[in-house]
Structure formats: C-alpha cells, structure tokens
C-alpha cells in the first residue's frame, strides 16, 4: 500500500510526459491527488504495515505530515482546473514535476532511514525547481537558479551531517531510525553534536530559516501561486519533518537541551528577520514569503521549546499549510487577474472582484494568526511554552515580531483590497472553482480554531510523544 501511493504519482508523472492534451494532464493530476488523499484518509482508520524491508513506515508523525501534503496537492490540483482556463503555457513539465514532487514528498513522510530521508528531501529540491520557472521570465529563471544553488549546497551539508551521524552510530551500524533510537546510549555524543549542526544547517536551508532564507522571497515572488503553496506548505514542512526526526534522536541521547537552544536561536532570528523585511515590501507574494519565513521560525521555536510547544508546532504544521493555501492561492489568483503582484499595479480588488477581495482579507487574518483562525491557537501554544519555561524575553520578542509582521502584511494587503481600482488584464469575472478551493481551506482553518476532532488530537499527541518530553 505504501509503495503503491508513491508509485502511482510517479508513473502518472511519467505518463503526462507523453503528448496528450493540456487539460488531460491537469485532470489526471486531479485524479492522482484524489486517489492519494483517499488512501491517506484510509490510513487514519487502519495504519499500514511497514514495507520495503522496514524502510517505509508510517508512524503518527508521518501520518500527520502525509495528510497535510495530500490535502495541499488535492486543493492545488482542483485550483489548477480553474487557473489553466486563462493560462496559455504548456503544462507538460509543470504537471509532471508536480506528480514527481507528490511522489518524493510521500517518500519523505514515510522514510524510516536517515539516508533515505536525505535522498527524498534532495529529490524534492530537484522536482520543485522547474516549477518556479514555469513562466520563463528572466526573473523567474534567476529565482530558480538562486533556489537550486542555495538548497543544493545546503542539502549537501545535510548529507555530510548524515555521514557524521553514521560515524556517531558506529556501534549501531545502521541508520534505521528504530535502531538508532534503541541504541541511543551507544552513540558518540561528540560526533552527534557535529552531525546535528550540519543537519540543522542543511535542512534549515531547505526550510528557509534565517539566515539561509534569501531564496524564499525570490522563489515565492516569481513563481505561480500553486507552486508557492506547495513549497511553503509542503516542501519546507518536509524539511521540518527531517528536523523533527533529528530531534527524536537528540532527545533520546540527552542532547535535547543543546539541539533545543540552537533551534530557539534560529527560530527567533527568522521571526525578527521576517518582521524587519516585511515592512518595506511592495510585492504581495514576496511579503507572503516573509510570512512563510515567520511561520517556519514559529515551527522551529515550538520544537526547540519542547513540552506544549511540540504539540503546538505539530498543530501549527496543519494550520500553516491551510493558511498558505489561502494566502498564496489568493495571491496567485490576484496576480493572474492583474498580471502583476506589485502594489503599484493592483488596487481596489474588492470593487471588481468582491469575493477575491474578501478572500485577501481572510488570508491576512488567517496568515497572521488572528482569532478565530486555528493559527491563533497554535501560535498561542508556542508562546505559552516560552512563558512556561520562564523565557519571558523570548516570549516578548515573539509577540512583538508577530505584531510587526501583522502591521507589515496589513499595510500591503489592505492597499490591494481598497482604493481606486486599477484595470485588470483578465475579464472582470470571478472564477468559482478557484474561489471555492480557497474558501474551503479558510473554512477548515476556522473549524480547527473552534473545534478539534478527537482523532486529530490523538494523532498529534502520539506524534508529540514520539519526539519525547521537554528538553
């Protein structure tokens, strides 16, 4: 079953490379995402058994991330049905890469071997790069180049870290996660420390943590909304899963304190960087990219703080994905309608496209963690974790940064929504499919903010228990 849900997207990805019609490719992608989601939903009822000699295992953590990714792909695929009505470019490479990306991200969530995890994360970098330069403009090619260069060097460092981990696990003689965890006492602490630093820098590049974040505004600013959603909600969170796996090992070996303190440092730095840079931003997608840096910082902070913070971080993984769907798909829809995402070109969206205008405002509130959106709760949990561990200065900095980011985003989004309207390039008609997808994600975000289903709580608690207790 596990091999099947990785193979189906891969084979369909190969098949869309054949000469078929544009809409057929997109419909096939919708079907693949739908089948994927159905299978993932069935995993919530009965967890599949390990496969492929124990390399592919679905634990509570994997299930959580896999569900998030599956949802992202489903919503993006349906959104594409609407988007490609007005899109003239060939969809061949785009849909093929999307399906390969679905395959590799699934492997990331399933992999139970640190080496396989690295291979899968690296593969996601490769298949996401062509997505950024979908519109072959000069700027998007430049963004692709920057992304490829930074992330592949980063991922090379993570490989070095994986090798160091293998040295640390010299006596265990395996990089299978259960073997490393059960033989945690035999790990060499010094080598583990070096390995952790390399892994953090490597996967941190992929996550876009400050100071390795510079590819993010470029890549998200220049690519289509769909690509940004999958990168901000899926790709970066896959790298976060890698960091979570590392923290599993760290907590078992008593390095939780060490790892936690580095995570807190990079996390708060990301928040501050996002807060500083978002203020001067003139482009909607770029400012949302800074919001993504902020959310990654929050995730890492939660993981580093431990305790209730871990629960909050895992909950935030879901909320972040939903918020990113609302934010980037709305931004993509606006950018398609106006042919630009710059504040100088777009004003008064609400007069011409009332629904899109309202969705933009929802994106603002959902993305910055306002009540009643679920992002509010998860961010509160993480701030709570900071207060409970008596890090008052840290908690204050988090709140302050979140406030500044809200002001920065509000400034640009409200400028887009209100004011005298500018002339769009597309007919003044809303697209029902696109808006329905965004509205559904927003509704889910509100529902999760008010009521949390019991199975979800159970899976998040199980996943938090896998990571371990407070550092």
């Amino acid at each position: 079953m596990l091999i099947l849900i990785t193979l189906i997207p891969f084979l369909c990805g190969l098949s869309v490379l054949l000469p078929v019609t544009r809409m057929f490719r997109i419909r096939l992608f919708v079907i693949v995402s739908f089948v994927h989601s159905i299978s993932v939903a069935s995993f919530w009822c009965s967890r599949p058994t390990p496969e492929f000699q124990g390399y592919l295992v679905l634990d509570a953590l994997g299930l959580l991330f896999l569900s998030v990714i599956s949802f992202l792909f489903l919503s993006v695929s349906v959104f594409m049905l609407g988007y490609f009505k007005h899109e003239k470019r060939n969809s061949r490479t785009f849909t093929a890469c999307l399906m390969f990306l679905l395959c590799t991200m699934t492997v990331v969530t399933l992999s139970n071997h640190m080496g396989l995890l690295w291979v899968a994360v690296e593969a996601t970098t490769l298949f996401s790069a062509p997505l950024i330069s979908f519109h072959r403009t000069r700027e998007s090619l430049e963004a692709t180049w920057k992304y490829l260069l930074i992330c592949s060097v980063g991922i090379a460092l993570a490989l070095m870290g994986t090798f160091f981990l293998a040295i640390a696990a010299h006596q265990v003689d395996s990089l299978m996660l259960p073997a490393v965890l059960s033989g945690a006492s035999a790990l060499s602490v010094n080598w583990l420390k070096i390995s952790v630093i390399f892994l953090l820098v490597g996967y941190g590049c992929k996550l876009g943590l400050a100071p390795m974040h510079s590819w993010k505004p470029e890549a998200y600013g220049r690519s289509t909304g769909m690509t940004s959603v999958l990168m901000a909600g899926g790709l970066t969170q896959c790298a976060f899963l890698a960091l979570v796996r590392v923290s599993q090992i760290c907590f078992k070996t008593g390095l939780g304190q060490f790892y936690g303190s580095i995570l807190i440092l990079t996390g708060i730095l990301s928040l501050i960087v996002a807060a500083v840079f978002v203020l001067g931003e003139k482009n909607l997608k770029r400012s949302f990219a800074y919001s993504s840096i902020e959310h990654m910082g929050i995730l890492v902070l939660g993981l580093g703080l431990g305790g209730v913070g871990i629960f909050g971080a895992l909950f935030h993984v879901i909320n972040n994905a939903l918020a990113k769907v609302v934010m980037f798909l709305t931004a993509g829809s606006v950018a398609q309608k106006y042919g630009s995402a710059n504040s100088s070109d777009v004003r008064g969206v609400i007069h011409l496209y009332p629904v899109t205008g309202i969705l933009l405002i929802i994106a603002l509130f959902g993305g910055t963690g306002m009540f009643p959106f679920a992002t509010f709760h998860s961010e509160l949990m993480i701030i709570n974790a900071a207060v409970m561990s008596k890090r008052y200065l840290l908690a204050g900095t988090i709140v302050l940064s979140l406030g500044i980011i809200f002001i920065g985003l509000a400034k640009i989004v409200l400028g887009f929504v209100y004011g005298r309207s500018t002339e769009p390039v597309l007919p003044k008609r809303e697209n029902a499919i696109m808006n329905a997808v965004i509205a559904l994600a927003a509704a889910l975000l509100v529902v999760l903010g008010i009521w949390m289903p019991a199975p979800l709580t159970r899976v998040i608690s199980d996943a938090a228990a896998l990571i371990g207790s407070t550092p």
Partner: protein
Amino acid sequence: MTTWIDASCILIVFFSLSILATYRIVGMIQIYALQSFVLSLMPLFLHAGNVSSRDIVLSLGTMVLKAGVVPFILFWAIRRISMRSEIKPIIGLGSSIVCGALLVAGAFWVSMSLRIPGKAAADLGLPCSLAVLLLGFMIMVTRTRAVTQVLGYLIIENGIFLFALSLFDSMPTLIEMGILLDIFVAVFIMAIVLNHINEEFEQGPDPEKQVKPREVF
C-alpha cells in the same frame, strides 16, 4: 595500500587548490575531471589489494559519471557562452591561493581534535575531505559566473564523496547515496541550460521590459 590512499587524498586537495588558482573556465573543468578521475580510483585501494566486484563497479561508475559525463555536460554548456574566462573574481588569484592554503591548514587543525572510531589518527580521509569541502565553498563564493559556481558545488560534492569513500567500506547504502547525488548533479546541470536561456536573453535588451515593466504570471 595506505600510501596510495594518502597520495590520492593529497592529490585531490591539490587539484582543488589549483582550480582556485585557475583563470580559464575550460582549465577549471579539466582539473575537475582529473580530480574526479583520481577520486574514482580510490575504491580500488580501499581493501589493501583485495579488489571486490563492488569496488570495481563503484570505481567505474564514478569514473564514467564524474570524470566523463559531468565534464562533458559542462563543456557542452559553456560552448554557447562567449566569455570563456572568469571576468572578475571577487578576490584576486594570488590572495585566493593564500586564503585556500589557510583553509587547508584550518581543516587539518580541526580534524586533529576529531577521532573517528575504528580509524588510525594519521588517517588523511577526514582532513582532506574537509579541506576540499571548504575550498569548494570558497570557489563558490568568490567566483561570479554561473558555471564556476557549479564547479564550486561539484568540488564540495567531491569532498563529501571522498569522505564517504575513505570512511565507509562497510556501508553500501551510504555509497549508493553518494552515487544518487551524482545523478542529481546531472539534473543540476540541466538547470544551467535553463540559466542559459537567461543569459541568451541578456544579449540584447528585453523588448517586453521596455514596453511595460510588469511581470507575467
């Protein structure tokens, strides 16, 4: 056989240094190919003269990919670029060699305090791979052209490969991963082709840009 391994390690560091001191891109690619060739011979020395079939496969695979295919693609890639040499390295050649030498010294100094379980203290694998890694970073940072940045990345990757090779002969999966990284390099270079489209655009002014400074989404 340890002499052979040590000699190869030192040669690999030496080649990285000479790439740092090279001005022409063609020369850099040639040195990279030589370095990869030496690297690909190393699996044959690992087991003190007993060459197993896995060693030969690994050696041949590395040789074909790193010393053959990758330089070939790089040469193919620069065929279209008019400027064959690095225009302006950020640091001059003389001072970059001095910096490189300092990095090598640093790598040896750091690895003095690191002892790999089951290896002799005088083993050159770790310091040399660290040195190559750092030199690769240095090339990447100080060179401005896209091709030279890729070369820097490739050298970093060679450093990691050297590390994997001289430290693990009992871990097949890890080495397989190294080869996987190689496949990645091939794909990475396709991105250069993409970048070429970019560079071709830069030949003349972009007509779209002059009409209206709007992005297309």
